[in-house]
């Protein structure tokens, strides 16, 4: 059973990592969370990215959200930007695709081409 007191332990164990996270200019994973995105399943996708980033302890990765970018038929849409590299847009993303995207793209720098918008068109 979780309690508010657990937060003290979390604070102690994460404080050192927080400063590293603040200082790093790393990868941004942005999930479309407008009505169209949510209806298409963006919530479990975003939460799967949060879980995966936490599980792998990736300190230079931020999971963020945005509104509708105007391509509702491709939702859930996820854009990944890494400094010095081109933005990659993943479409029709499902939670089960997330571990592969994080492992191949975010960790190893190889975008998962078959999930990208270029393949969907």
């Amino acid at each position: 059973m979780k309690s508010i007191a657990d937060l003290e332990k979390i604070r102690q164990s994460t404080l050192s990592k927080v400063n590293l996270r603040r200082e790093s200019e790393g990868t941004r994973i942005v999930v479309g969370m407008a009505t169209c995105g949510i209806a298409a399943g963006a919530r479990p996708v975003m939460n799967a990215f949060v879980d995966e980033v936490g599980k792998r302890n990736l300190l230079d990765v931020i999971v963020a959200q945005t509104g509708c970018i105007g391509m509702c038929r491709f939702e859930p849409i996820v854009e990944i930007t890494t400094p010095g590299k081109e933005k990659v847009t993943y479409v029709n993303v499902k939670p089960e695709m997330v571990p592969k995207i994080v492992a191949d793209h975010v960790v190893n720098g190889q975008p998962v081409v078959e999930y990208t918008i270029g393949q969907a068109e």
Partner: protein
Amino acid sequence: MNELSLYILDLVQNSVTAGAKHILISVSSDTDKDTLTVVIEDDGCGMSKELLQKVTSPFTTTRKTRKVGLGIPMIMQLCEMCEGRFSIKSEPGKGTVLTLGFKASHMDMPPMGSLGETMLSLVNGSPEGLEFVLEYRVDENEFRFDTQEVRAMLDGVPLNTPEVLSWIRDYITEGIEETRNQEQ
């Protein structure tokens, strides 16, 4: 959308976009009256009378990327389908209060789904300095979650740290489960 918690996530995004600093999400069930009431209250920029009058139209949006805004029309339709009521009050500079009423046992009523997942998404995706309160009530029993309380305990660790987000999801899910079980 197949869960009420997804509608809530979508509607609260409007409050976030409106620049709110405090957002209250209240979900209460009354077993005897067979009602479920959801209230979303924010202190965002509010809406002018003109915008408020047309906000329930699917062709009203403040966004530039497309010409439709389906969040409010969809929830209004759901309230009406479930023999409930929908009301929206707003004042520029003060904020907006959205009240959604449902007949809890109505056959068109979607399941609540995971409010823990919805709160995880909201807390993760929101700007620093935005506080959420979630109140979940079943008759006399209440569960309350307040990000200010969490923030005070964390003393500088941001709420969007993965370990904290995961705790938020589990804490809310368990708290809601316990509140439901107390009733049975």
